[in-house]
């Protein structure tokens, strides 16, 4: 239970931000109501309905970065479920004569009907998420498009229940501004809190960098699945409210047109934040409502404006174009509305004892082999890294170093051999499971979650292993101090200079409380002074955390100074292993590696 409740933990900033956003939308609605009367209520109802749909969409699309074209299908499901359950029995007999008995004659109120809608949305999300959460990027988007079409065909085909392509009528007109308002406010709070919950944070991490997220212990499928299911359930409720507004609809009302409107709202506002979803919905609604008044023509007394239909659609198109051109991330961009941050006391933390390394255990690489067609990238490579030991893995370009690293981390499955971490075989484990078992890593080309803050970057990994949100926060605070990142803790990772970026990546890997850390060319692109600083940092990490380090590096100076032992590979095979001095004098190494360099230098 402790673990589950930890999943619902959110910081005070997210909570206050959720309240602030809800407050603003609530106030806006009241202003529309008290200033503009019934006319304002109508606009507010449209606005709140759209907002519900856009927020439901943003829970998945905003946090995962995968644009979903399928969400109106869930809205359709919600509308039909609620329509059937609330329909007066007399109307239902005429409209749906062949409705299956278990669905007929319920005449539920809106609240109980919405409970069933939520359930239907959950089920639809659970089923459709199984394939979709496994996909990434545009592949996933295309899959959602296919989903939209499939559900549309099902709605058209289920004639007994939906009247097929014919108008589904008799749905009670239940959507008023006072029904839509509390629901929309609830959606705002849910969407905003989810974004900062562990599940939302993991989903955003996967959006920023899938490989790094997995290496930080994030199960990508689970992260996407959770977001998808929640998003689908919310969309179903939004659809039910939309259905009770229309009171007569057919599957085509939940097809491409509605989808594009919702996506337009999300893109214009900015899909990365809840603020963006609200701003986009409000902006597009305002553009539509103002232009449709203008296009209907009116008399100002001194000048008569004629009817110009089409203005609304032109305006909508222009707004979308302008947004994409001037603000590719939407009007809100990365900005999330929040109370001005109160400079709370920085929790000073006692240095927690590092995880004690298991005695006698080691990271054991045993006979790893990988072939790509005829090319042998790694052949029977074996070596070990003891706790607290720093081992260098070197070799000329194309020697197979990265292949070996990728096999150890689970990104590549070896054709033969195994990596054993303190007695536990890593064979067949995915990158995220291996990360949680205690193997942290950094990447040759730094992989950070660029649009997440420094703190959030580390938090993603900390949440993978820490028992409670509290201990995760402490771990993050400790690492911020240790890696000298405290001053940039609230900056986005993408804005950092090179040095802090490297340190952040290491901090994130250390947040996994790893027993072994794999560093892929940590000094790449550094000047000698920076490299010296890095050597000091890495030595300190070994001393402080007691971790074993496997360092893949080209920089001979760094390797020779830092490592206790060096493993040399060439053409996929281990050709030498030993202390820096021993390796430096090894004939084969000179021939394969250093020798070639000399030749090149001579030439």
């Amino acid at each position, binding site marked *: 239970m402790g673990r589950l409740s930890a999943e619902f933990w959110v910081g005070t900033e997210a909570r206050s931000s959720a309240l602030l956003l809800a407050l603003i939308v609530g106030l806006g609605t009241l202003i529309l109501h008290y*200033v*503009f009367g*019934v*006319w304002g209520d*109508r606009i507010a109802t*449209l606005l709140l*309905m759209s907002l519900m749909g856009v927020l439901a969409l943003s829970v998945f699309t905003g946090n995962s970065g995968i644009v979903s074209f399928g969400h109106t299908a869930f809205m359709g499901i919600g509308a039909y479920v609620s329509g059937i359950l609330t329909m007066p029995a007399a109307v239902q007999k*005429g*409209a749906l004569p062949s409705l299956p008995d278990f669905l007929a004659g319920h005449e539920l109120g809106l609240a109980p009907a919405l409970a069933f809608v939520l359930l239907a949305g959950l089920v639809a999300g659970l089923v459709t998420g199984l394939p979709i959460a496994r996909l990434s990027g545009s592949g996933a988007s295309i899959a959602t498009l296919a989903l939209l079409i499939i559900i549309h065909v099902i709605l*058209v*085909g289920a*004639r007994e229940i939906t009247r*097929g*392509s*014919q*108008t589904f*009528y*008799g749905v009670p*007109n239940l959507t008023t501004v006072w029904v839509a308002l509390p629901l929309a406010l609830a959606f705002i709070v849910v969407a905003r809190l989810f974004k900062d919950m562990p599940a939302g944070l993991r989903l955003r991490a996967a959006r920023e960098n899938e490989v790094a997220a997995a290496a930080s212990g994030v199960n990508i499928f689970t992260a996407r699945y959770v977001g998808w299911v929640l998003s689908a359930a919310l969309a179903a409720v939004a659809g039910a409210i*939309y259905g009770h*507004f*229309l*009171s*007569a*609809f*057919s599957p*085509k*009302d939940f097809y491409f*047109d509605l989808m594009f409107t919702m996506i337009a709202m999300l893109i214009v506002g900015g899909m990365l934040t809840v603020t963006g979803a609200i701003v986009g919905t409000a902006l597009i609604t305002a553009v539509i409502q103002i232009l*449709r*008044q203008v*296009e*209907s023509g*009116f*008399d100002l007394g001194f000048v008569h404006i004629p*009817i110009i*239909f*089409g203005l*609304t*659609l032109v305006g909508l198109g222009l707004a979308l174009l302008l947004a994409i051109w001037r603000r590719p991330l939407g009007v809100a961009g990365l900005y999330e509305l929040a109370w001005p941050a109160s400079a709370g006391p920085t929790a000073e933390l006692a240095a927690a004892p590092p995880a004690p390394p298991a005695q006698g255990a080691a990271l054991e690489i045993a006979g790893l082999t990988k072939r790509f067609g005829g090319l042998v990238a790694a052949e029977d490579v074996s070596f070990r890294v003891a706790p607290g030991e720093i081992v260098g893995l070197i070799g000329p370009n194309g020697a197979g170093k990265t292949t070996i690293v990728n096999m150890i981390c689970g990104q590549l499955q070896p054709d033969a051999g195994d990596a054993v971490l303190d007695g536990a075989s890593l064979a067949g484990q995915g990158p995220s499971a291996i990360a949680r078992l205690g193997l942290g890593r950094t990447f040759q080309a730094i992989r950070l979650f660029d649009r997440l803050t420094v703190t959030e970057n580390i938090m993603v990994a900390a949440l993978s292993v820490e028992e409670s949100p509290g201990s995760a926060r402490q771990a993050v605070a400790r690492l911020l101090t240790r890696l000298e990142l405290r001053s940039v803790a609230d900056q986005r990772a993408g804005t950092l200079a090179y040095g802090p970026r490297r340190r952040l990546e290491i901090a994130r890997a250390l947040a996994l409380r790893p027993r072994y850390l794999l560093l892929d060319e940590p000094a790449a692109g550094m000047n000698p002074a920076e490299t010296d600083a890095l050597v000091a940092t890495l030595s300190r990490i070994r001393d402080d955390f007691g971790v074993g380090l496997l360092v893949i590096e080209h920089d001979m100076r760094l390797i020779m100074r830092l490592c206790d032992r060096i493993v040399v590979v060439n053409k996929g095979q281990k050709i030498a292993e030993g202390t820096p001095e021993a390796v430096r004098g090894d004939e084969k190494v000179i021939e394969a590696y250093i020798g070639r360099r000399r030749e090149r230098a001579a030439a």
Partner: protein
Amino acid sequence: MTLRTSILAATTLATALAAGAPALAEDFTIGLATAQTGGLAFVDQPSLQGFQLAVEEINANGGLAGKHKIVLDIKDTRSDTAATVQAAQELVAAGVKVLITPCDADPSIAAGQISQPAQIPSFTFCGTTPTIPSAVGDYMFGTYPADNAQAALLADYAVEKGYKTAYVLKSPDTAYTLKLPEYFAEVFQKKGGTIAGEGTYALGQQDFSAEVTKIKGLDPQPDVVMTAAYEPDFPAFIKQLRSAGITSAVLGSDGVDSPTTLGLGSDVDGLVHTTAGFPSEGSGVAAFFEKWKAKTGAAPETIYIATGYEIPFIIDAAVTAAGGATDGPTLRDAIANLKDVPLVTGKVTYAGTNRMPSRDITLVEVRGGARTLVKTATPDPADVPAP
């Protein structure tokens, strides 16, 4: 300007915008929540053009029943059902006497849900789904030939021609392409015909080889193939049907009443289809087309201009029958009791119907790139299948 006055000004402006120009006591405001842009504009636009011309003419003669000038409050629904609901809410709140809804069932029924409780008689511009009035209630009326009436006339014609067996091709994707052939099959069987088979297609499907093979495999070949397909499906289907050597007669609905059909050459020779009206020599439609041409300088592109033109005259007939009364219940009863109102495309009767009018429908035959009149008739209400 203080905050208070600016809010007041904004409110006033908003109210003025929402309500449109205030109507005089004698005026009769008709609200139009129709699709002037988007997917339905191809039917709602010409309907509105005809509608406006009729209003001009009626007003020139002193207004409805000679005394109520018509004022139009026109709103575009962008072919969006939610926007139609909003427009209907605004028009009903503004106190319109009659509401006009788009040429489609969803927005018409949705808008009808708003006007029905307000007791405002409402017409769909040219929605053909026969369930539109019954789904809404006693204030909702159709005007255009309904799907089931078109189907009944086509079945009558098939029986008259001596066809014994028919193949129907339908698409579940829209109510029109699905129900019209189903209504046809119902009437055709009731009158002694046999359905030799039926096939389905998806809208936009370009390959009809499976359906054509199915028809080709029938022994004996069906006397007639009936479908409510329209472009781009109908041209693809008929080309593939004819090139497979199938010579059965083909019956279509008003969806193929477009110039495209005439461009299909000999493949469509002999095609008989329904239409709301046809400008044959000396007909009311021909006279209207002449008038339209004289007025605008161009021949009408579609029959929807004529059917849109008819609606204000239906309202005029009702107001006249009600002795000039314009309150909702009186007007509703007057419309529901209209009988044999002479209009451009023929006579229209609401009395004794479920508010989808009994009216003349025209059958035309395509040959040599031109249409000729087959007949204009009102299907016997007893033959028209229940929606």
